């Protein structure tokens, strides 16, 4: 890979030498330090990428083992554990539950996030009200998840809702709301507010203005929000763990239960499927609305 800044630095060194300001030894020394510096940074990046992805690759490799307890190196390669996962009733049910909760949480959560973002960025309300909405929505980002989960769990018990699908869904909605809100709000803030005012001055009502002026500009953020929220909900563990009770099982709960019992090729294949699925969703979302 090219390294423009260091090349530039090296060029400057050569100029310096031509005008007699730097010794040959100095130039060589700076070249070496620049090379070492570039090497250090590149090495760190490569090691970080390996650190993040090698475990995933390792589990992918082990999931191909013909034995239920893989031994290294594998004696053969098979996809039978993937077939086993996809035909296992408990896993398929967990997958379907996670998918359904994720679908509702991501679509409804994005709708609520849109309303919250609109209130925070454009609402005709006093500044402190909009700031308060932003703070209340942001709570799950900064309050430890275990505290949020225990709070909702105890509150559900007190109100008499108990545990099950309803509380889990509410918990997921609450969990994805800040992500949707702030993703959409950052896009909302780039939309020229005068355009909507002009549309209204020309006689369009609020809904028409929103549909014809604001919405077309928000689409990428909304779509990214749905996908990110889906990935978040699909992978959510702790809140579900506190609220599910005995009747509901999701994919992360199912995998957590299996991890506690002991690692098998079945679990490796299930893990790879979950990683591929959420990774694909997040990659599409990031290409619509890149991070930063």
């Amino acid at each position: 890979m090219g390294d423009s800044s260091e090349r530039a630095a090296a060029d400057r060194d050569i100029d310096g030498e031509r005008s007699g300001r730097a010794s040959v030894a100095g130039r060589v020394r700076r070249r070496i330090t620049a090379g070492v510096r570039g090497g250090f940074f590149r090495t760190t990046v490569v090691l970080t990428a390996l650190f993040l992805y090698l475990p995933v690759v390792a589990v992918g490799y082990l999931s191909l083992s013909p034995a239920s307890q893989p031994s290294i190196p594998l004696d053969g390669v098979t996809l039978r554990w993937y077939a086993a996962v996809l035909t296992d009733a408990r896993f398929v049910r967990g997958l379907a539950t996670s998918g359904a909760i994720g679908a509702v949480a991501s679509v409804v959560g994005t709708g609520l996030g849109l309303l919250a973002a609109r209130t925070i960025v454009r609402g005709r309300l006093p500044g402190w009200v909009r700031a308060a909405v932003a703070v209340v929505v942001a709570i799950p980002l900064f309050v430890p998840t275990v505290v949020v989960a225990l709070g909702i769990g105890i509150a559900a018990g007190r109100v008499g809702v108990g545990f099950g699908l309803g509380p889990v869904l509410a918990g997921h909605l609450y969990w994805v709301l800040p992500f949707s809100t702030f993703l959409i709000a950052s896009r909302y803030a780039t939309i020229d507010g005068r355009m909507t005012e002009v549309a209204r001055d020309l006689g369009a009502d609020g809904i028409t203005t929103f549909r014809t002026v604001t919405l077309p500009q928000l689409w990428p953020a909304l779509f990214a929000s749905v996908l990110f929220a889906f990935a978040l909900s699909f992978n959510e563990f702790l809140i579900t763990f506190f609220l599910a009770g005995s009747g509901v099982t999701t994919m992360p709960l199912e995998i957590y239960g299996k991890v506690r019992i002991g690692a098998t090729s079945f679990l490796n294949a299930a893990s790879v499927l979950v990683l591929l699925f959420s990774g694909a969703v997040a990659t599409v979302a990031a290409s619509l609305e890149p991070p930063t």
Partner: protein
Amino acid sequence: MSGPTDRIPVLPGDDDRRRTLVDAALGALPTALAVALGAVPIALLIVESVSPPVTPSNYAAVADSVYPAVMLRSLGIGAVITAVCLAIAYPVTYWLAHVCPARYRLPLLISLTLPLWLNYVVLNYTWVWILAADGIVNTALTGSGLVGQPLELLRTPSGIGVGPIELPGPSLGIGFVHIYLPYVLLTMYVSMERLDYRQVEAARDLGAGGVRVFLDIVVPETYAGAVAGTLIVYARIAGAFATPQILGSPSEQMIAQTITTQFYDVLDYPFAAALSVVFLVVVVVGFGVGALSTDVRAELKRW
């Protein structure tokens, strides 16, 4: 963020009042959800923690026996892991933002932050296979003859500590860094991108070495991102449940595990609530101190 200043001033009238009402009604929906599931439960936690009917005994129990040690250990592990994440994030984001050719920048940034959206239970579990006695690392080490016996890497405490702060064992530490590094990378990158590279070049031309450039230019210009990253991951690490459960040794019990045990197994809700409130107060105080700086607040707005 653009606010009221964007709007063409209009004369106040019935239409205006109606629109304010509509705006308030639309905003009420998500706010009600957030209040019902955030503010109310936290208030209920505080009520629960002093029940029945009003007693400080739950807090007295928190101060007792092992719980302060568990709390300190959680906070200490949070601090150590956050520091490690920052130490990795500085060179990586610096390279990404200022050295990496522009066309690779976005794909690399996306791949380094993608694990944010992956399942952390699964990511933690991947390390079980790598670090187990018959796992990949040990097979490689014993196979190549580097070590005679498999190393005890999985769920082993480090045994190294400074006062009450105990370093996490190898598997717990690696698992934590794996899960939380992407958050720090993302926040640091945002800051690093705004660092004016010409300052670095100027310092180099004036003869500053790598360490001087880092301490005198990179750190002052990007500390807000570092603090924001710290605030975002610190409480999550200290309050993590799945990672210590899967990769920690039994002697490395952390606060979320204690709270969960009280909730699930002991069914002592008031005590679990008291533990949570104490933990929350510690985190919120730390957060308040960090967020005092306006630079940091600006950085956090992105989240």
